[in-house]
């Protein structure tokens, strides 16, 4: 402790003496602020708070985490984009920014920042209450075909995960439902446990404990192969083979900084985050939560983000839920 304190003192004293331009050699000199674009206790928050201690170790610095939720994450991202581009503010974001332009929520997305790390991707499962008459995805689709516009789907608002999954299904089949909006996966699951909605596409992290306990039934996972954590739940391609062209797809988490941040600082951060994500404890945390780590940096991260955006935006376009055409935003077709 004393040693660390002394080291910090010497470091900061040295920095004041030199007072030259910001260089990676003496970065970080002070605390870094990590802004989480979702609220405390949510999936993004949990990922950020589990990952950061490992990054701090690799970076030999301190990262103070702050939640700036609101407006599907627009506010948190906007905050980071208005802070100085000196590497002392990093954004912990989810997949939402990639849909801001199509949804007309904001005119920026991840391409206006530099991704430091695409941490990992979550899995999606379509769930129904335990006592639901629907036992397979085909049952659900058939019910929706027989009685269009009567099934109640739990949603999380325009641009949320359920509405995106609905758009994907609608681009290959028809699923005409009533969309009941909840504040997030948690309130949606609660409503489903009380039979107030018929089904809901959920992040596996939020649903897996309920499915394992038999409180919810998993009808399909949004994947081409069955998952190790829920081997008895079929894949969605077993019912809807055409949806395979969109997969693998899921919500993801990423860390990004402003574009104008000096390159050597970006490199330092990339290295630290790569080490942090690779940490064994963090890996097992992500796995336990029904997700997989990606640990992408540099061009790989950019490619991932572009691909995700193009797949999702065009699925929404063909389902008719995009507010601004992806063509107009020059988002290439997948």
């Amino acid at each position, binding site marked *: 402790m004393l040693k660390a304190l002394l080291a910090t003192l010497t470091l900061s004293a040295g920095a004041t003496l030199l007072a030259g331009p910001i260089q990676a050699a003496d970065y970080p000199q002070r605390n870094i602020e990590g802004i989480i674009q979702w609220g*405390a*206790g949510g999936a993004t928050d949990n990922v950020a708070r*589990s990952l950061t201690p490992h990054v701090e170790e690799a970076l030999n610095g301190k990262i103070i985490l702050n939640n700036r939720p*609101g*407006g599907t994450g627009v506010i948190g991202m906007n905050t980071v984009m208005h802070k100085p581009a000196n590497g002392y503010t990093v954004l912990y974001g989810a997949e939402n920014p990639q849909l801001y332009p199509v949804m007309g929520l904001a005119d920026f997305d991840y391409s206006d920042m530099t991704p430091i790390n695409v941490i990992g991707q979550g899995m999606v499962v379509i769930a129904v209450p335990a006592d639901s008459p629907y036992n397979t995805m085909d049952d659900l689709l058939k019910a929706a075909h027989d009685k269009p516009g009567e099934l109640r789907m739990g949603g999380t608002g325009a641009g949320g995960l359920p509405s995106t999954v609905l758009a994907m299904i609608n681009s290959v089949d028809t699923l005409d439902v*009533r969309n009941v909006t909840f504040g997030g996966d948690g309130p949606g699951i609660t409503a489903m446990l009380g039979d107030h909605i018929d089904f809901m596409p959920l992040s596996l992290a939020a649903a897996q404990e309920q499915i394992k306990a038999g409180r919810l039934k998993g009808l399909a996972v949004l994947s081409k192969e069955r998952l190790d954590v829920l081997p008895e739940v079929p894949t969605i391609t077993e019912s809807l083979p055409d949806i395979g062209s969109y997969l693998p797809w899921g919500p993801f988490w990423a860390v990004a900084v402003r574009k104008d941040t000096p390159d050597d600082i970006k490199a330092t951060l990339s290295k630290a985050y790569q080490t942090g994500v690779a940490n064994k404890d963090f890996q097992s945390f992500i796995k336990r939560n029904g997700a997989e780590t990606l640990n992408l940096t540099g061009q790989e991260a950019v490619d991932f983000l572009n691909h995700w955006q193009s797949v999702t935006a065009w699925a929404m376009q063909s389902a008719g839920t995009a507010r601004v055409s992806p063509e107009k935003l020059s988002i290439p077709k997948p």
Partner: protein
Amino acid sequence: MGDTLSYFLMAWSDPWLLGLVATGTFAGIYIGAIPGLSVTMAVSILISFTFAWDINNALALMVGVFCGGVYGGSRTAILLNIPGAPSAVATAFDGYPLAQRGEAGQAIGLSTVMSVIGGMIGIAILAASAPVLSDMALQFAPRDYFLIAALGLLLVGSLAAESLARGIFAAALGGIIGMIGMDPVTAQGRFTFGSVDLLGGVHYVIVMIGLFGVAEALFQLHQLDTTPVRQKVDKIIPSLHLVLRFLPLSLRTSIIGVIIGALPGTGGDIAALFAYDHAKRTTKTPKVPFGEGAYEGLVAPESANNAAVGGAFVPMLTLGMPGDAVTAVIIGAMVVHGLNPGPMLMIETPHIFWFIVGALVLANICLLVFGLMGIKLFARVVELPRAILIPLILVLCVVGSYSINGSMTEVFWMLGFGLLGYFMKIFGFQMGPVILGVILGPLMDKTYRQAMASVGDSSSAFLMDLVTHPLSLILTAVVVLLLLSHTPVKRLWTRR
């Protein structure tokens, strides 16, 4: 059984855990007392802080902070008329007038004892009937939450002192403030005028700090030359007689608190307002009128908001679903610490359940000790000369609103609401209904649209649902009867 007891006593017998619960409770009281520093915030900071700790240690600290924080909100509400947290808004209605009468010490003493009684009742119900209560909570459909919100808005009748019209205006204003920000369904901005900062809405704590804190400070400028009331600080610990007199009320409002707390969509803030209303309705002849320093008006919300803590743990421990914002963060902490909060939590890891129950009881005992300590000192705050007190309040307001998001936007909003509140006070408007509107407006908006979407946007189906489901029917009947009791219909009925 033996196992249960040993889990329950874990936090009691381990001096380290005991210390953590005590530290958490102590810190919680002061975090809760400062408006803007919320328990939710404190607990989420604790996640990073306790990352490498053992889960029991982390939970001990969090449980302590939670209990302390909910109680702490009443401190500043009584002393300065600034509720430290939304769940203490109702405490200010009668707590502050008590302090102005020189009874700040007695008010804090009574609120401490009643908080602990409420807290204990909440824990007892949690321990005895968590699974039953959570099954009951699941029965609440969106339409039932809508009815609860409607019932809540009817509290305007209780909160708007002399003029009902002004009260309705204030509540409507609050409702509109609550609508600012992104529409939860369509993600369209409402009342944002294109500003990105407004997309997330105006945090209701900002409204609260402005309307209560700044407005109070500005209003006191009118009375600069009056000498503050001397505080009576002799009989601080309430007599057994006094406690017994309010025990029935405390019991009733604690049950209100547990139930509202256990519903995943509502929490201690709404519970306290309902409890206040209940006290006002059932106390036919208070010694002092409500709003002027009635003990009943203090006992009810303080019992209810602390009982709601036990309630909030019900869905969390039985289903892995948060009962309020704080338990949502505690669930996050458990996930980070490698636990799997879900329906299996109580079965696979029963020690977590009983450990939390034990820590809650311990935290409430700490609350009694710490809460009754230093009251004399705190009561003197009211005696401070205005020239010191007013700047102190303003500083507290600015710090509190800045710390919500670490940005100046909130501070400007808070000052704006302060100014608004000042003029509202001058023209005889009450602040309570505004907060009521800010809290309940969005709940009503959200749940009404959920209920309508569930029935395919058919008004007739929605109205049918209100009377064909037993739970909804009861709530509808209460709403209708409550409305009728305020109209000439009742007078006609009773005259006959």
